[in-house]
């Protein structure tokens, strides 16, 4: 008997017995109201209708066990038992550096051949009601670009991506797919291993670069827009506006564009040429970029409003969260931005030096930024410990980033917190560490009664996250307001029907629905002629959400300001 391959267990999480090598579908006829919610969604066409009883009929021999029917049924009248008929996901292709010092080769290589990509694409069911699209904050038409991979049509794949994303080469490197597209894949919702959507998107951009921006309509002709902040939200808004024929000027405080992707994410995760690609394309398309210009200091919103038809504020959340710890002002204590910027410029040299050779570095925090800090420090010769007060199972950081950090020699200690930083002669000498407990994901960790232990170190880097700057004009009234729940008392029934909210294995659907509110928020101007998008609107969030919000703010702006006479080319 052939073995069924799937990720969780030999026979899938829901199989009844060790002998069941195939899924079986049971329809409770008394409960089935014949609404065909299941029939119209089955990816493989295993469901039909009994014309006499007007209830659903299943052909179990065709069923692949994705359980969409179970998730969508309004009355719980259909159940699937048995394994999922899908092979395991393709290889991760991780690069393992032999010597870490100065090595900035990308760790995650993605799929390296058409065979790997097509084999992965073949795991996609091309669902009639794709939940992956709902999970993607930008609502990329995922089944369509996967179909294009199967057809080996890179042009079609890029055309699909271009509708919703201007940075697929970045998103396919930095996104947390587990809480987004892959977490919403029908296989994930059924408790299995998802299609490697991130790696498939990456494969498209690896094989053929993202095309330069083209003006495709004159819907925004004559509209001038000022965009403050050249991060993912700002650049996405600019792309949308330029394609519609608007005249865009981008104001950026730093020397480089890209926001957190420039100063925050190291090049062994996100290569520099990918960060720089969009702004180069935008400048080629006629966008004016003014760097070294800060809101509140060099430019003011009121002036911009007078000069331009509209303003989009996308200056992000770049102020590091600072803990009022004893000793935080000692020399040798740095914030993550400062450290990463310096690390990046050292690692960008042709022969980077181990500038922290032998140093003991403690990183406060174990989030994505902290992992970037820790791994950069390792590449510069340091011994690194990362400390986070949360319990590991509740931590929000991408698990693969923790694993990669640990593989590179970073000690990541959850359930610990730094009580104080001790110094000698005004310089950091060590940290006092206390242990914590945490009962559930929604509760804050608490200190245990155990006494603190001192750990000697030479450097402490604060990587506790960021917040929106709260000084002057950069702070917008009533913002940020990250929505905790989706708008409206009852979820959109189409979301309910998709089944994304109804998985016993994951709450990813609730996350996706809450993100939807952010897109709706981005469409609304925050005051007359001013829109906001990205971290400044919703608080520290993700690259893809910022990009999607920037796109939506721009779309809303175009709709609000464009003349009804303009037509698309």
């Amino acid at each position: 008997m052939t073995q069924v391959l799937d990720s969780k267990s030999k026979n899938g999480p829901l199989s009844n017995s060790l002998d069941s090598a195939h899924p079986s579908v049971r329809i409770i006829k008394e409960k089935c109201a014949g609404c065909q919610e299941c029939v119209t969604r089955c990816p493989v066409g295993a469901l039909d209708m009994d014309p006499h009883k007007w209830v659903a009929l299943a052909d179990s021999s065709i069923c692949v066990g994705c359980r969409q029917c179970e998730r969508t049924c309004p009355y719980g009248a259909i159940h699937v038992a048995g394994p999922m008929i899908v092979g395991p996901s393709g290889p991760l292709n991780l690069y393992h550096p032999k010597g870490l010092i100065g090595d900035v080769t990308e760790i995650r290589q993605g799929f390296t051949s058409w065979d790997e990509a097509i084999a992965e694409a073949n795991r996609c069911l091309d669902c009639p009601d794709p939940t992956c699209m709902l999970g993607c904050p930008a609502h990329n038409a995922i089944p369509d670009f996967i179909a294009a991979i199967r057809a080996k049509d890179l042009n079609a794949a890029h055309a699909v991506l271009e509708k919703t994303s201007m940075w697929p080469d970045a998103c396919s490197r930095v996104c947390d797919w587990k809480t987004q597209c892959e977490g919403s894949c029908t296989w994930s919702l059924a408790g299995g291993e998802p299609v490697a959507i991130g790696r498939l998107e990456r494969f498209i951009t690896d094989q053929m670069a993202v095309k330069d921006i083209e003006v495709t309509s004159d819907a925004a002709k004559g509209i001038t827009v000022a965009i403050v902040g050249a991060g993912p939200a700002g650049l996405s808004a600019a792309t949308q506006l330029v394609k519609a024929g608007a005249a865009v000027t981008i104001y950026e405080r730093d020397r480089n564009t890209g926001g957190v992707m420039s100063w925050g994410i190291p090049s062994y995760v996100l290569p520099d040429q990918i960060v720089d690609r969009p702004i180069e394309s935008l400048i080629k398309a006629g966008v004016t970029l003014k760097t070294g210009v800060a809101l509140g200091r060099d430019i003011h919103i009121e002036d911009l409003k007078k000069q331009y038809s509209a303003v989009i504020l996308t200056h992000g959340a770049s102020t590091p969260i600072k803990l009022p710890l004893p000793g935080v002002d000692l020399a040798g204590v740095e914030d993550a931005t400062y450290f990463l910027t310096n690390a990046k410029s050292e690692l960008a040299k042709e022969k980077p030096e181990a500038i922290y050779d032998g140093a003991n570095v403690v990183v406060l925090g174990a989030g994505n930024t902290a992992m970037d800090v820790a791994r950069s420090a390792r590449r510069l010769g340091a011994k690194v410990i990362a400390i986070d007060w949360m319990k590991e199972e509740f931590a929000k950081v991408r698990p693969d980033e923790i694993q990669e950090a640990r593989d590179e020699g970073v000690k990541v200690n959850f359930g610990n917190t730094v009580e104080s930083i001790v110094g000698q002669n005004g310089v950091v000498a060590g940290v006092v560490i206390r242990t914590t407990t945490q009962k559930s994901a929604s509760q804050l960790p608490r200190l245990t009664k155990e006494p603190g232990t001192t750990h000697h170190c030479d450097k402490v880097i604060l990587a506790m996250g960021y917040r929106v700057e709260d000084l002057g004009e950069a702070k917008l009234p009533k913002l940020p307001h990250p929505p905790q729940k989706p708008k409206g008392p009852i979820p959109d029934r189409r979301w309910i029907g998709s089944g994304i909210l109804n998985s016993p294995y994951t709450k990813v659907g609730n996350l996706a629905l809450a993100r939807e509110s952010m897109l709706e928020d981005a469409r609304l101007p925050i005051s007359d002629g001013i829109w906001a998008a990205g971290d400044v609107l919703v608080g520290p969030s993700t690259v893809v959400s910022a990009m999607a919000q920037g796109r939506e703010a721009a779309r809303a702006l175009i709709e609000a300001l464009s003349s009804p006479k303009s037509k698309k080319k």
Partner: protein
Amino acid sequence: MTSTLENESKEANTLKNGQPRPVKVELFSSERRRPPKKAGMEQHFGPTDPKIDALKLPVIGKPLTKLFKSRPFQFMMILPNQAIFWIVIIGGIIGGSYAMPAGENNFGTVITWFIWFCLIFIMIVGVGRAWCMMCPFGGFAEWVQRHTFWKRTIKPITANWKWPEKMAKFGILPAVGTFIFLTWIEEFFNIAGPGYPIFTSLMVLGIVATALTVMLLFERRTFCRYLCPLTGLIGSAGATGMVAGFRTRDRDKCLACQTKDCMRGSEKGYGCPWFEWPGSASSNLMCGLCTECMKNCPEDNVGLFLQPPLTSVIKPDRRRTDVGIAVVALLGLVVFQQFNALSPYQSLDNWLNSHTGFQFGAYGYPNPIDYLGIIALAALVPLLLTGIITLLVAKKTTTQVTETKDSGPRVVPSSGGVALLEAPVAQSTTKTVKTSQFKTWFVALAYGIIPLMASDYLARQLPKFLSNSPRIIAAISDPFDKGWNLFGTAKLHIANQHILLGNGVVVVQMVVVGIGLLASLYATNKIVKNELVQVSKNALATRAITLLYVLALGVAVGGLYYPMHAAF
């Protein structure tokens, strides 16, 4: 290589159903979804799709629509009944002098047993689930579950259990079971005798408590659909009713609907508490007339349809076995209630009690053995007779039975070295088996005797109504037996009058059963013509024998009223 998991279309830009892949990126593209199956739809729904939409009638249509769309509507319908039954509960507990002939003028006794339990059958037979719309038992429990009287709340107070599959297989039969049990309790404590008013109070309180408990454990109106003692009776007997229920105006619209707000709920209302779908309703069996679906529908595609009486008896394409069994079981129950009024029964019961030790002071009737035994025997009669009919006139038929065995998934290595699974290859073997026609004939003919069964229940309640319903005139002035005279009617002479007594009642009973018998003959004739003649050996013989069977049943149950002498 192409994967065998791929859809029918091999091209990247064609969808499964052959349509070109949509260019616009839409989250909920209806072009991606498979088209709904419609084969057999006309044949299935054609005969039962009613033509008259009460909400589109001239003059009353618009006001009715407005009424049904208002959220307080159902609350307003339930409120009077709720008030009455709480007065019943309280009145029986705090009132009811034990010195008097038990319960004769007690409000609780009078309203419950002399009036309600008779009127409800008229409602059932005439309308269908009219009582369910205004029911204070389910209604009260639902108010608690929803923690509101009529608003649309989001988090119901309930463990939200689903009715288990093992129980759902039996449909309304558990409800018939609870009705048979409740009737035994009612007989044992002589609640409807009438007995002590407090027993009526406790019984009503018990029903309310049960409904509440089930509603706090199970989702929506699981109690009302699967467990309520009345639901089996109302659902099956109500098939004679003229209200078809809330149904679709345009079925294609329902099939194309992306949201199914009627089932899932929306901001405007709750998802169907009865687990129905207006798009597929083909009998009035389960629609509880709560109006939530028409409040929800974003397309205004739900109407309240009327049908000629007996439609849901004669016409459904999908006949339910559980309803068939329920009908004969309920007939058995009402026949018990006729038989227990005859003197041979008393002797039997006493004999059984003395031999089984089933006697608790003054209480011992009915012995569960004769209770269940007589019900079973009475139910067996139509069962056996149908069996004989099937043996005599049913055509012997055969069916093709196809067994499909799959070979299990096959592992196919791709050239990239990643193993894929191919869908298993199904191997089918078809064989010819003799099919028993009994189930088909039994269920169809059981539906045919629904009018007879319903009329028998109505007739059984008539003595109480005809002799004692005027007592309500006095009872409303003194609902708690405290010597009050709220409306000045407590001492009115008319309250002691009878509408009809003795032989007059018997005549009315027999006429009622006679009407039911005629309706059953009519219905059976139609059912035989539509469904059974084509599977019978001889059309004429079939018509004759089935009509004779119904006639015999009707004469037997109707005839029993004669020796019963209008007993309560």
